[in-house]
């Protein structure tokens, strides 16, 4: 049980994060894809920051924000009477931000890739933008949406720096697989660390194989 706990926690974190990314990321990506706002590129670069920032930098700022003195932390404590830092919920917030570009970018590319004529055809047939999204854009963006979800799920499984910064290493609460490996190595338990590492390696490989299999071209366009 103790052996499996970090993995279960990792899967739980990855699943919840991906779910949030799906629900909140799709409208956000829609806005990024179709907004005519001139300063959109600023929002885009902010969203892409986690791709280039060291996870520790990102983790540090998130910790500041969700800590007892941070604005998000104070708000959360006021509403739920709990602290957000060093909790599972805090990890979800961190993972969400950290994985944003991995979900948003494929979503956005897929939405932009839908032939504009089809949207115009839908509007001229009297259908609202929302209906058009549900019945034209969304089904035609399936591949991109699946790719975004799988990528962010896999990336979430592998994250370390952000998690360690904002979650620490509390067994059953914030001790995910990647942190557990680090912990085992520190305790000189190379055998256990090796098993954890091998499982993560195999897992990542399988996920990437699936993504490439679903749409190789799409994946290439992203990087």
């Amino acid at each position: 049980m103790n052996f499996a706990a970090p993995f279960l926690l990792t899967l739980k974190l990855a699943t919840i994060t991906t779910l949030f990314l799906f629900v909140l990321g799709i409208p956000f990506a829609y806005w990024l894809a179709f907004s005519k706002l001139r300063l959109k590129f600023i929002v885009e670069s902010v969203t892409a920051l986690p791709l280039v920032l060291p996870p520790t930098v990102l983790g540090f700022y998130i910790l500041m924000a969700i800590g007892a003195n941070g604005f998000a932390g104070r708000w959360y404590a006021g509403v739920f009477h709990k602290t957000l830092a060093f909790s599972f919920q805090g990890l979800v917030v961190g993972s969400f931000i950290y994985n944003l570009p991995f979900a948003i970018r494929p979503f956005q590319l897929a939405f932009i890739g839908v032939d504009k004529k089809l949207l115009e055809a839908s509007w001229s047939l009297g259908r609202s933008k929302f209906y058009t999204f549900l019945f034209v854009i969304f089904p035609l963006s399936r591949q991109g949406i699946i790719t975004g979800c799988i990528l962010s799920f896999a990336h979430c499984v592998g994250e370390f720096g952000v998690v360690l910064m904002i979650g620490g290493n509390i067994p059953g609460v914030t001790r995910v697989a990647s942190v557990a490996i680090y912990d085992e190595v520190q305790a000189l338990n190379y055998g256990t660390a090796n098993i954890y590492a091998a499982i993560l390696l195999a897992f990542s490989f399988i996920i990437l194989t699936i993504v490439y299999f679903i749409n190789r071209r799409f994946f290439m366009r992203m990087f």
Partner: protein
Amino acid sequence: MLKVSIKKTWKEFRLKADFEIPHEKITALFGPSGSGKSSILRLISGLERADSGMIHKGEEVWYDESKTINIPPQRRSVGFVFQDFALFPHLTVERNVTYGIKEKKRLKEAKDLLSLAGLSGYERYYPAQLSGGQKQRVALIRALARRPDILLLDEPLSALDWETRRQLQEDLKRIIKQLQITTLYVTHDVTEVYKLADYVIVLESGKVIKRGTPEEIFMGRRLSTRIQIVGKVVDVESDSIMAAVTVMHEDQYFKTLIDTEEVRRLNLVIGDDVVIGAKSSDVILCKVLTETQDVLNNIQQIA
């Protein structure tokens, strides 16, 4: 009746169009490519907004810049048929056609329209499984299925081969006439104008330069002749060099000889509308002697 009076400037192109299109008639918007034809359709349908002017559909105001009225495309009752069909690739023919239908009773009508267009049995096909001509029929029926007040066709046949195009011209005319729908048809093909349109608006570099019936617009301009008769081809007999073409005008027949090559070039077939012209230098004029019974025997030749 649709009244359009709009101005719009793109980077290097100025469009200034004032025209009306008659109720329940087919109006062709004719002009070379780049003359602004498609842009006018986009402005009427609300997919783009003009810089100034107004678009009235009967009593309804669709667009009026001075009153800052701009009804979105969803609320303008138009059916738009795109040049490259724009069918939803992930939906079946049936779902494509019923996509814009909100009332249940219209669903049945959509099925009838499909059979009117010769597409019964194709309901479960996907667009990728259809030929070009079938795709354009589906696009037409999709646009018509929710019974729009105005049908807008943006060079609907230009992506098709000649044979399919001919067949579709017939079908288009039949379907549109049957439904009696006000239609604006963008084309740069004179034959198509003759075949389909009741009324023509000629556009050049963003301006309306002529309007009238196809006869008024095109006759005398392309043929420098004194005598012109418009009729339908009823017979073509050709050998390798010459062809005898019989044309019917009202209840009279005219037979003329032309190059077989010309027949081929014009794609002249039975049913085509043609103009027979003759120069004034070589014409026989006769006076009909009305006092006798047998007219033909009493012609006095004077030339």
